[in-house]
């Protein structure tokens, strides 16, 4: 028996050593990445709010995430007295593991995908990341506090509602590919020579809104609305458990941004990948890195201490090396085979960053929705719109097949479909407005039942 088990283990390791390694790497590196996303968010917020943001730890606060992580790790771990210990322990772990598992299905460039070529690709990512809701609901329940429970209920109602809209939006994009496989989806966009965001703009819009709601980001951050519910389902969590939730939230942001990038923004493809006279764009990554490096170099003498100057130099050097790595496949013939992998990875991460930047931008700019408004937006506007859009895209595709349109030509049929969908959206909004005049007296518990 032991022999057999041992053999099975060896067999398993032999077959799956690479994805296992990647998995370990992701689990190890992701907290760091999330930490730096948070730093970027804080810096952006500071910039938009006429202040500086973290400046103390490291030059320009570059070491702040590490300080934060250390602080969170050594904090006292408080479990409320009446909390359900088992569930309280389980909930954050559930939340974060769902988010991390979803990352496995993503393809960061043609070369990097942990779960290679799974047949259900995008469904796997969406489905597994949806499991994170249990972490939220159970965490809220286990804390044995009204605020937490209300946060949890809000959150689950919100996720269930917006998942429908997000799913419908995904379906509209999937209609163009006829496959769920992530690599095949990107390759379809490469073959058509046009990103699906142009073919299905309304679906992209629906997914954008729904993904913000699904990741509980502002203006849909009601489950953790700090001014109403203190911190929603996270109220009673502290230290490491809290940071797990935090990690899950940002990992989820990465997941939804990656799904949107894969389906709508051409995944790892360079903009205009098949237009040869635009091959100049291949130098953009290098240029970007060199600019960052130059900025760091310029700032180096202005750092107050020697350690900080060294650190700044190191960052500049890192960016410079990255720039060279990005340049090599374009100019050096030997490195040509690595072109797809390296540049694919760059463009994918670039697009994901833009998507996340948009999230942050929204968060600093607009106020928060109220719960009934949020539900109304989901059920009365987004879901009907996305369903109608699926129908319209389907009709457009049939028409496209009839006229034998390909690539950019498909725009001829999809644009009218998008315009009709937009008109429908405006009609829905107008109807909402006229109805919004009368006071809405449904009991609050009824929109949970929705």
């Amino acid at each position, binding site marked *: 028996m032991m022999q057999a088990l041992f053999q099975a283990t060896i067999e398993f390791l032999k077959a799956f050593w690479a994805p296992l390694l990647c998995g370990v790497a992701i689990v190890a590196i992701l907290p760091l990445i999330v930490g730096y996303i948070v730093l970027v968010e804080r810096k952006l*917020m500071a910039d*938009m*709010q*006429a*202040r500086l943001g973290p400046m103390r730890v490291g030059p320009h606060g570059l070491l702040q995430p590490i300080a934060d992580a250390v602080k969170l790790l050594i904090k006292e771990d408080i479990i409320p007295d009446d909390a359900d210990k088992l569930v309280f322990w389980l909930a954050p772990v559930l939340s974060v593991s769902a988010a991390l598992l979803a990352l496995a299905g993503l393809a960061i460039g043609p070369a990097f995908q942990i779960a290679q070529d799974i047949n259900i690709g995008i469904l796997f990512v969406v489905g597994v990341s949806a499991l994170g809701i249990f972490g939220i609901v159970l965490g809220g329940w286990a804390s044995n506090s*009204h*605020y937490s*429970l*209300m946060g949890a*209920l809000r959150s689950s109602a919100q996720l269930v509602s917006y998942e429908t809209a997000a799913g419908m939006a995904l379906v509209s994009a999937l209609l163009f590919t006829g496959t769920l496989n992530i690599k095949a989806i990107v390759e379809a966009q490469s073959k058509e020579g046009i990103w699906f965001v142009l073919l299905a703009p309304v679906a992209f819009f629906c997914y954008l809104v729904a993904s913000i709601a699904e990741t509980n980001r*502002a*203006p849909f*951050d*009601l489950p953790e*609305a*700090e*001014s*109403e*519910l*203190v911190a929603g389902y996270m109220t009673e969590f502290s230290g490491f458990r809290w940071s797990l939730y935090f990690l899950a939230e940002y990992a989820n942001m990465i997941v939804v941004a990656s799904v949107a990038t894969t389906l709508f923004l051409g995944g790892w493809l360079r903009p205009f990948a098949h237009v040869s006279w635009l091959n100049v764009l291949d130098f953009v990554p290098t240029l970007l890195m060199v600019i960052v490096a130059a900025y760091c170099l310029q700032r180096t003498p202005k750092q107050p201490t020697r350690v900080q100057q060294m650190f700044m130099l190191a960052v500049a050097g890192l960016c410079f090396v990255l720039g060279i790595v990005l340049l090599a496949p374009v100019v050096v013939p030997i490195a040509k085979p690595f072109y797809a992998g390296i540049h694919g990875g760059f463009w994918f991460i670039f697009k994901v960053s833009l998507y996340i930047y948009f999230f942050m931008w929204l*968060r*600093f*700019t*607009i*106020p*928060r*929705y*109220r*719960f*009934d*408004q949020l539900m109304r937006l989901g059920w009365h506007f987004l879901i009907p719109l996305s369903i109608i859009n699926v129908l319209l895209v389907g009709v457009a595709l049939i028409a496209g097949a009839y006229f034998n349109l390909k690539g950019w030509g498909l725009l001829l049929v999809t644009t009218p479909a998008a315009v009709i969908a937009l008109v429908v959206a405006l009609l829905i909004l107008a109807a909402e407005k006229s109805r919004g005049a009368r*006071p809405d007296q449904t*009991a*609050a*518990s*009824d929109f*949970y039942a929705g």
Partner: protein
Amino acid sequence: MLGADELVINMGPQHPSTHGVLRVKLKLDGERVIGSECIIGYLHRGVEKIAENRTYQQFAPYVDRMDYVAAVSSGLGYCEAIEKLLIVEAPPRARVIRTILTELQRIASHLLWLGTHALDIGALTPLFYCFREREEILKIFEKYCGARLTTHAFRIGGLQYEAHDTFEKDVERFCKDFESRIVEYETLLTQNRIWIGRTKGVGILTAADAIAFGVTGPVLRASGVKWDIRKAMPYAAYDQYKFEIPVGTTGDTYDRYLVRMEEMRQSRLICLQAIENIPTGPIMAKVGKVLKPPPGEVYHAIEAPKGEIGYYVVSDGTVMPYRVHIRPPSFINLQAFDRMVRGHLVADVVAIIGTIDIVLGEVDR
């Protein structure tokens, strides 16, 4: 959650958006509020009783600690009340400077309200913009009297300090900058769909209700009652300046927001008018070192940023007041909270607490 009996939630005293240590006991049906009870007194310091054991001058700094975000206004009310009791008048120069500082304080107080109110509703950024401008005002205060928050800027009978050299220039520069800054806040909020959705029709207080509750200040004016003590019973130097009293129509949170925004504009105009022509002359009336008002009683009210702040002072002819009663606007305005909040959602409770603009130091005294 689904039980037939309602869910009771204690909001506060430790809660990020009760603006201090207000505790609200909310009876909820799901998320809908069916009843509320404000439990106050966590910050009670017995200010009125302290007054009976201090001389008139000694008590003046205490009133700054009530509405600590609008200390200048509270101080002005107290000083003028005692002046009324003493039957003296502050010299014209002192009155104009008092007017300027009080109007600056009104802007500062409204800015703080705007920032925190927007933060309660989920807009993060206006807070920092508001604090940026408030900082300028506080700098002017600091230059004038050395303190930023609890200023104790005025003395009974006039002013202790002459305006500093750059006073007029500072105020003018602030007023110049502020014109464009207020447009910034408006672009962030006034036409924002979500902002309108969150504030319009929320916490409606009709004019009749507002009067019945004794509500004053912007809350009253937003309900459509044109009542402003600056116009009705002018004090300081307000009778010399031209300004409008903005009023709302429906008395909802959005109207209160608009009214306060407009009030900031008007305050700016008053400041500009005032620095044009600051009379010269003494800044202190002739009052003795020891104040012994004749026996009698007096009530004097001024328009503080949050509403009518009134002082009822009884003197028995000694150096200490026999009784001081304070009518704090926050406390009275808070009475209307239950009426405003019923039937709304938990999220609206936060918006309504914000829109009343309470300071717990003043509510509890």
